[in-house]
Every structure is written in structure tokens, then in C-alpha cells.
């Protein structure tokens, strides 16, 4: 399962840019997830106005983004990644978004394939 963590949040505050990613990555390292998670520290996930952004993604599955998080959400983020990974399409209708993250869901990017 793939977890994308923004490495620049808060992107437009040069003094603290990157802190969210470092703190969340450290918090995740302190947890031993049941399923191996592939963390991708990506440049940005485009949710900047509400910084503290992650996304769960996977081949052929919807990319689901959460914004406005802090490192205290590490366990919930891992749970979301595992649930997303276990689902077929990745669309949140198919898996249970952890209660802590429900209000932070900010986009669902469908892997749209050709019609028919």
C-alpha cells in the first residue's frame, strides 16, 4: 500500500516548510503497521490552503487525499492506507474512512479509463 506524504507542507511558509512531513514520517516510524506501507515523500499534493496533506494511492485505484492533518493522525492515516489497499477501486464508498479523517477528506481522484 502506498502512502503519499507532502514534503513541503506548509508549502508557502519557508520557515516551517517540510515540518509536517518530517513529523508525520517520524510518528509513523514509531508505529508498527500490520501491513507494510510504501511511503512516498512527494513534493506537494495540491491541498496547500489546509496544510498537512497526505494521500493514499495504489495502481489503478482512486487517489484519496486528506488535508489539515497533524502527526497525531499517524495511526488513522495508516489505517486508511490499509483499508484503501484492501478495497478494489480505492473509492471511499468501498472502504471505511477512519472517523478521525472523515472531515479531512478533500479529494478523490478517479483513475478514469476509456469509455466502454
Amino acid at each position, binding site marked *: 500500500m*502506498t502512502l*503519499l506524504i507532502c*514534503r*513541503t507542507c506548509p*508549502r508557502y511558509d519557508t520557515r516551517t516548510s517540510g515540518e509536517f512531513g518530517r513529523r508525520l514520517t517520524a510518528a509513523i516510524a514509531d508505529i508498527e503497521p500490520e501491513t507494510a506501507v*510504501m511511503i*512516498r*515523500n*512527494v*513534493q*506537494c*499534493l*495540491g*491541498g*496547500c*490552503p*489546509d496544510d498537512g496533506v497526505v494521500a493514499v*494511492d495504489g*495502481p*489503478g485505484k482512486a487517489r484519496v*487525499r486528506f*488535508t489539515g492533518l497533524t502527526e497525531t493522525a499517524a495511526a488513522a492515516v495508516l489505517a486508511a492506507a490499509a483499508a484503501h489497499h484492501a478495497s478494489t477501486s480505492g473509492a471511499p464508498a468501498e472502504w471505511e474512512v477512519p472517523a478521525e479523517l472523515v472531515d479531512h477528506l*478533500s*479529494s*478523490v*481522484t*478517479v*483513475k*478514469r*479509463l*476509456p*469509455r466502454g
Partner: protein
Amino acid sequence: MPIPTSKVLFRNVSILDSTGADPYPGDVLVENNRIASVGTVDPDAAAGARVIEGRGRTLMSGLCDAHTHFSWNNSADLDGLGTMPVEEHLLFCLESARTYIDSGYTMCLGAASAKPRLDVVCRDAINAGRIPGPRYLANGPEIAVTGGALIPSITKFADGPEGMRKAVRELIGIGVDQIKLSMTGEEITGTLRAEDTYFSDEETAAAVAEAHRRGKRVCAHARSAESVKMCVRNKVDIIYHASFTDAEGMDMLEANKDWVFVAPGLNWLVATLYEAESFGFPQEAAEAVGYKKELEVAIEGLREMHRRGIRVLPGGDYGFAWTPHGTYARDLQHFVELLGFTPMEAIISATAWGGEIMLQPDELGKVQPGYLADLLLVDGDPLADITILQDHDRLNYIMKDGKFHKEPSTDEAPAPDPANMPSTGTERLVQQRA
């Protein structure tokens, strides 16, 4: 007195050479700014080299973005590209150049500049070694006809064949490498439809003829079916977007695939449709103006282009708030997941074909002897998971023109002594093959 040769030996790497061959273990020797040998390295040739222990990591070519805008300033709206004062705008461009090479992109083709000389100045500064950045082919402001500008404040207006010739001459005069024509609309404008074409055949022909006469190529913002055909008829070298290519246009592209490039800028469509709400453009609005339909049609067409062997390259329009700089490698994921490219095909399109679109097919985009040493040492296998390339931490080493742009200090090894060489990847490879 001869100038001493600078040597770097990447030892025990998995060589992803962009020829289409499966990665294979071996060593790669760089001498000065070129790749000297690949696979099996003569220990004598490697004497005195700085050694980077690959430990099985992937060594591959630097990447190419075929649709680059240094001056797209991560604005949350189109007008934001035009309102930034030139001083701040130049600083932003310098940061963009650095972000590209930080992201593993060593080749970029400029697809328009928001102010006349921003691209040109950045290219020259990169080439002079004054700032870090990719190899860059610079563009100027995009040319549009009256009433057909996507962002009037950053557009060079021209009408009629004579107007086109004059505009092209002026842009060549400031030093651009290619010319950009903005031929169709863009749905986010709210008024200019993607399926509408604003250029005439005569205007396109005049612009291309004038550019080609001066040895410059032409690229075009061309979303509509008619604009794609107009591009091919008039020998526009690089077609951007091509979302609504129809059957006739597809046949024309295939018949001319030896010279034409398509760079769809796919992430713009994906992110604008699904991920721009944080910046005031919700999915419902994007669907209402047509982005859902365009994405579906574009994917269908681009898959067909891929089946027909038309060169479709990643890269495109990064530099808006929801498609920010530094996320360029997401295009490769789209190519694999949406367009049906294998990871190998996606990487070849971003490397070997990158060398072709940069007009240096015999020296850029491959890990081959004689090629310029633009290399990435990647922690992981991008063929197994293409998203690795989105993670800058996985790009352990970035080299351009034989010089490291990024180099951690943890992988150093003593310079090889030909009389007492340790067991290297080369030796093991030779033993395996014996």
C-alpha cells in the same frame, strides 16, 4: 599540459539504459561529462575514479519534461501568471529551474514564458553554470490571435500571415529556441472552448514557415480536432494536449510519426478535474465546463496514439496551485495507469524520446557509451513501482553533464587500485557470463 580527466565510477548498479533492454547489473564509468563505458568497466580505465557504491540501486537517464513552464508561478488562477512583477517572476523562474533538476529532470522543453525573456535568461544562466537547472530549450510568450488568448496579459498577439511572421521574427530576435502558438481555447477560461480553433491555416503556415526558415521549431496549444490536423498539415513540430483528435487526425499523426511529437500535459486535466477544489474550482464546476468529458476523450485518443507508435511524451503545464512545480513525475504514473504504457515504455518516453525532442537523440536520454552523463541513481526499481520517481528522497544522486547536482556523502568508496581491485559488479558480471 593535458587537462586531467575527471572520472566517476558507479559500481554495482542496476543499469536501466532506456534502450528497452531489461535492467542488468554492472558498472558505469563517467569521464568528464560523458559516459565512457557501461556494464563491464576496464579496471585500468577506472583507475583514480571517484567510486559511488550503487549497492544494486537503479542507474538511469535523467528525465525530460516536454511541456515546461518555468514561469508558471503556482498561481491559483490564470491571471496570476501575468500579475507578478518581473523581478519576483525571475526569482520564481530560477526556483523552478532548480526544482526541476531537484526532481530528477535534466531535460526540459519550454512551452511558453509568461514574460518575453524569462525563459531565455534562465536558459543562458543555466548554460553558463550560474544557476542549477536542467538542459533547457527556451520559449517566449505564446502567440495568439485577437480574441483567442487564454491569458491576455502574458500573450503576444498577432493576426494574419504577416502578423505571424513579424511575431515569430521578434521572438527569434530575443533568443528563443522554439515558438508557441496558442491555437485553441481552454475550458477553465469560461469563455474559450477547448474544441474551438482560433488560428487559420494561413496563419499557422506562415508562423511555421518563418520559424523553420530560421531553424526554430514550433509547438502549439492544440486541444481541438481541427487544430491537431492544422498542426500536422503545417508541420507544427510539437503538439500539446491533442485532446479531441479525431479519426482523420489520428491517421495524420500516424502518417507523420517520424517527426511529430505529442505532449498531452495529462496531469493538468486530472488535477483540474479532481483536485482543484482547495483553490476554488470544485469538481462539479470542472465537470460543468467539460473537463470530465475532455479527460475521457483524451485518454481514449492517447491510448490509440500509443498503440499506433506515435511518440507521446510526459510533461505538462506544471506550475498552477493544484499542479505545483516538483510533482512532474506524476505524469509517468498517469502514462502507466491511464494510457496503458508499461513502466518501461513510460520511462523510455521520458528519457530516450526526451533526447529526441531535445534534438540530441544520440547523446541524451540513454545510459550508453558516448552519451552525455545525465544520470539518476534511484533507490528502488521504477519498473516495479513508477511512483518511486515522485519521491525526491529516492533520487539519491542526480548528475548533469558529468557533475553532481545532488550527492549524499554516504556512498563513497576508495578509488579503485587496478593492481588490487575489490570484487566489483563488473567482475561478478563477467564471472556470471563466463
